[in-house]
């Protein structure tokens, strides 16, 4: 009879056992804020479709101090999400070769973050111009 009795260790609580996994769970968790904000914008769109009263109601709700606090928290979470998203981006792409040299991971991450910053500024400028 075989004396083999391989021991399988449990996986429960795996993500709490390594700082790398804790950070992973945090950056995955911040995606919930991205989803939550998409729902806020969607609600705004629905209110816009419902007519002027509903739209003004939504605009009013957006001015509530708690909603402004929610916006600030969400902004921080989305910023962190973008940072971690672009940090892992080089690992998700085929090698980018420019002029016979492989583009470094730092360049790809930096390029992504620059694109986000530029798009955000552009959107901000556009809405600023539209609402003034």
């Amino acid at each position, binding site marked *: 009879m075989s004396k*083999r009795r*391989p021991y399988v260790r449990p*996986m429960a609580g795996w*993500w709490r056992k390594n700082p790398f996994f804790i950070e992973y769970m945090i950056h*995955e968790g911040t995606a919930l804020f991205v989803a939550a904000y998409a729902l806020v914008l969607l609600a705004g769109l629905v209110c816009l479709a419902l007519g002027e009263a509903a739209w003004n109601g939504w605009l009013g709700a957006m001015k509530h101090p708690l909603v402004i606090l929610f916006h600030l928290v969400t902004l921080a979470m989305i910023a962190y999400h973008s940072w971690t998203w672009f940090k892992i981006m080089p*690992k*998700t*792409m*085929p090698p980018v070769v420019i002029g016979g040299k492989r583009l470094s991971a730092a360049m790809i991450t930096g390029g992504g973050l620059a694109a986000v910053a530029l798009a955000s500024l552009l959107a901000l400028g556009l809405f600023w111009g539209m609402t003034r």
Partner: protein
Amino acid sequence: MAEKTITIKVLRYNPEQDQAPVFQAYQVPFSDDMSVLQALLFIKDELDETLSFRWSCRMAICGSCGMMINGNPKLSCKTFLRDIYPETVRVEALNHFPIERDLVVVMDDFIDKLERIQPYIIPAAPRSLAQGEYLQTPAQLEKYEQFSSCINCLLCYAACPQYGLNPEFIGPGALALLHRYNADSRDGASAQRMELVAAEEGVFNCTAVGYCSEVCPKHVDPANAVNQNKTTAAGNYFMSFLKPRGTSK
């Protein structure tokens, strides 16, 4: 002057006696140039010959001595006591694999997966000896060279929570090797291997944790191989709608 010592706590498991693994502590003489593997060898030679672990080359190329050292997957030959001293060194069998005994894990699952990816060149048009060797340009070599450095040490599997949660997943190491052959200009079996890439147990189990690439002692970057193949597999899936029936691969 008393000799400097360091405490090594080893997760012991004897299937004939123990219900579950338990830690056992040893005091080992400390010197600046000692690796964790050397400390384990000291234990086996001088303190406790029943301690079981795998090792061979002592220079980070055989891939035998992977273990969890203070919670991280490491090659014990490449991890030095001086970087941990005066803390205790905690040594456990590689995570996510069944423990056979002490630090020895059951590798059968990985060996099976390695066979399934066909880790060898299958030429599209085999050349005869008279035709000479298969030629390759430096640019073609560059496409797969990094992924060919894998030494099958399994650190990436011990770093992959998705493999721990679902051992059906082909996993980072085997998928990196699969990519190594698919990306080789001399190989012609990419379509066969892509079936495994896109299968239930394939690349879509990966959630881009990325720890596999962090722990790889050979800088293979398995996360990159896996995620590149997500794009390729998804591309193939959508392209298959554009091709006539029976030819989609």
